[in-house]
C-alpha cells in the first residue's frame, strides 16, 4: 500500500542543516492502522507531512498504491492528494464556512457537481455523528466536534489513506477516546488505511495494529503493537510503554516487595492476547501446594488483544514452588523469576 524508501528531509537554516528525517524505510499495509510514535523533535511531524508532500523530501521515495508520489509533477500531485485525506491537531477548519461548506470544500476542489456534493456531505455528516449541525459555524462547536468535521472533510473524496497529524493531541481524554473510536469505525467500515503520528502511547495502544517508534529522524523499533508492548527493546520504547502500563513508583515498590516478601519466590507474569483469559492463578494454586499472593497487576486492551503484567509471590515448600513455576512456564504466559526491573 505505502512503501517508503530511504526517505530523507534536511531543513537548511542559516546556521546549520537540520536532519529531520533520516533515511527512513517503512511499509504500511492496506487497511491497517499504523502508528508512529515519538517525542517532539523526533521528526514524526515532518515524516507525515512528507507523505503527501506538504514538505518536499530531500531524497528518497514514497510509493502509494503503486504510484510513485515523489516523482509526480505539481499538477499530478494535486490530483493524487485528493486520494490522501489528512486531519490535523488544530483541525484547520475554515471559520468563514459552515460545517456543511467545510466538508463540501474538498469536493469543490475536486470539481464535484453541486447536487452530488450535497448528498455526499449529508452522508458524511451522518457518518461522523454530526447530524443537525450542518449549518453551525466551527466556532460554535466543541473540540471533538471540530475534529469530526475535520474527519468528514478528509473523507469527502473517498481517499485511500488517512493521515492523522496528532489528531487527538488537543483534545481531552474522553473526547480523544470518542475520536479514536470513530477512526476505528471508519477503518473497519471503509477499509481505509490510517497512518497516525502521536506522542501518546494510549492512542497507539487503543487503535493501532502496528507501530513504529521514531527517535532523531529514524525508526528505532517497529512491529505489531502487542510485540512492541511486550518486548520493548529500545529505551525510548520502554518509556512509551510505561506511559500506559507504567507505575511511576514501580522500582520503589519492587524494593518494598522484595523487602516484605522474603518467603518463596516473587515472579512477574506477562499475559498476551488470549491467555489473559486463562485462570492461571487459581489453576496453579489448585495443582500445587502453594499460596499465590498477588502483589501488583494491570491488564490493558489493545487493538490486537489484551496485554498485562502481574507480580505474584509464590510461597510453599521449595520443590512445590519450583514445580509450580516450571508448570507456568509451559503455558503461553511468560514468566520472569525475581524480576529486577
Amino acid at each position, binding site marked *: 500500500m505505502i512503501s517508503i524508501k530511504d526517505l530523507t528531509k534536511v531543513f537548511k537554516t542559516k546556521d546549520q542543516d537540520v536532519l529531520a528525517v533520516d533515511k527512513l524505510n517503512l511499509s504500511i499495509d492496506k487497511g491497517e492502522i499504523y502508528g508512529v510514535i515519538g517525542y517532539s523533535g523526533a521528526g514524526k511531524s515532518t515524516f507525515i507531512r512528507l507523505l503527501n508532500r506538504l514538505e518536499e523530501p530531500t531524497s528518497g521515495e514514497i510509493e502509494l498504491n503503486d504510484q510513485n508520489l515523489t516523482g509526480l509533477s505539481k499538477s499530478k500531485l494535486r490530483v493524487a492528494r485528493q486520494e490522501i485525506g489528512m486531519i490535523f491537531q488544530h483541525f484547520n477548519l475554515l471559520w468563514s464556512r459552515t460545517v456543511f461548506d467545510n466538508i463540501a470544500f474538498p469536493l469543490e476542489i475536486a470539481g464535484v457537481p453541486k447536487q452530488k456534493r450535497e448528498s455526499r456531505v449529508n452522508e458524511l455528516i451522518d457518518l461522523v455523528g454530526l447530524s443537525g449541525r450542518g449549518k453551525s*459555524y466551527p466556532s460554535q462547536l466543541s473540540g471533538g466536534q471540530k475534529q469530526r468535521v475535520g474527519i468528514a472533510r478528509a473523507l469527502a473524496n473517498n481517499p485511500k489513506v488517512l493521515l492523522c497529524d496528532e489528531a487527538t493531541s488537543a483534545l481531552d481524554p474522553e473526547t480523544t477516546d470518542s475520536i479514536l473510536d470513530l477512526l476505528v469505525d471508519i477503518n473497519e467500515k471503509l477499509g481505509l488505511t490510517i497512518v497516525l503520528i502521536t506522542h501518546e502511547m494510549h492512542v497507539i495502544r487503543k487503535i493501532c495494529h502496528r507501530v513504529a517508534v521514531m527517535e532523531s529522524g529514524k525508526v528505532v523499533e517497529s512491529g505489531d503493537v502487542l510485540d512492541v508492548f511486550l518486548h520493548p527493546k529500545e529505551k525510548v520504547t520502554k518509556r512509551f510503554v510505561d506511559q500506559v502500563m507504567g507505575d511511576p513508583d514501580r522500582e520503589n515498590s519492587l524494593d518494598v516487595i522484595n523487602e516484605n516478601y522474603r518467603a518463596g519466590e516473587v515472579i512477574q507474569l506477562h499475559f498476551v492476547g488470549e491467555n489473559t483469559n486463562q485462570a492461571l492463578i487459581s489453576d496453579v494454586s489448585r495443582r500445587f501446594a502453594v499460596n499465590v499472593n498477588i502483589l501488583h497487576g494491570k491488564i490493558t486492551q489493545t487493538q490486537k488483544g489484551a496485554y498485562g503484567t502481574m507480580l505474584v509471590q509464590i510461597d510453599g515448600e521449595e520443590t512445590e514452588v519450583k514445580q509450580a513455576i516450571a508448570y507456568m512456564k509451559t503455558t503461553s504466559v511468560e514468566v520472569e523469576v525475581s524480576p529486577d526491573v
Partner: protein
Amino acid sequence: MFEQLFPNVEMEDMVEATNETLYMTSVSVAGTFILGLVLGLLLYLSGPGGIWQNKPLNWVTAAFVNVFRAIPFIILILLLFPFTDFLMGTIRGPGAALPALIIGGAPFYARLVEIALKEVDKGVIEAAKSMGARNRTIIFKVLLPESMPALISGITVTAIALISYTAVAGVIGAGGLGDFAYFYGFQRRAFDVVAFCTILIIIIVFVFQFIGDFLSRKLDKR
C-alpha cells in the same frame, strides 16, 4: 433657527458639494479596494513563504507601495497632472481627482491587506493544499474569505482617509465639501459655511464607519 445659525448656507449648493464628495469617495474607495487588494495579494503571495514566493516581484511591489505612500497627497495630485490629463481628458472637476485618490489610497490599503492576509491561519492554507487545491482556489476560497472582516475594516479606515483626501483635492477644483468650505466659506469669511461643511463631512465619515463596522461584524464568524 437654521437661518440664524447658518445665514450663508444655501442648501442647493450644499447638496451639490455633498454629491461631489460622495461621488469621489465611492468611486475612489471602489478603485482603491481593487487595486489595493491586487497589490496586497502580490505583497503577501510573493513574500517569504508565500505560494508565489519571488524576491524580485516582492521587491518591486514593495518599492511601488512605499514610494507612493511616502508622497504627500497634495504633491501626488500635482505630480499626476499629466497622467490625469491623459487618462480622464481633463484636469478639473471631481473626475480629475480620482486617479490621484486611487493611487494615493491603494498603497496604504495594500499594506492593510497584507497584514490581514498574514493573519490567516497557515494551517488552513496547508489543509487546502493537502486537499489538492490550486493556488487560485487558495486565494479566492481560503485567503480572501478568511480575511474578509479585516479586509473590510481596512477599507473602512482607508475610506475615511480618502474622504479627507477629497477635501484636499479641492486645489485642482475637484469640487466637493472641502473645496466648497475653502472657496465659499473661508475666503468669503462665511464661517458658518465652513462649520456646516464640517458637520456634513463628519456625518459622512460616521456613516462609512458604521457600515464598515456592521459588515465586518456580520462577516466574522469566529
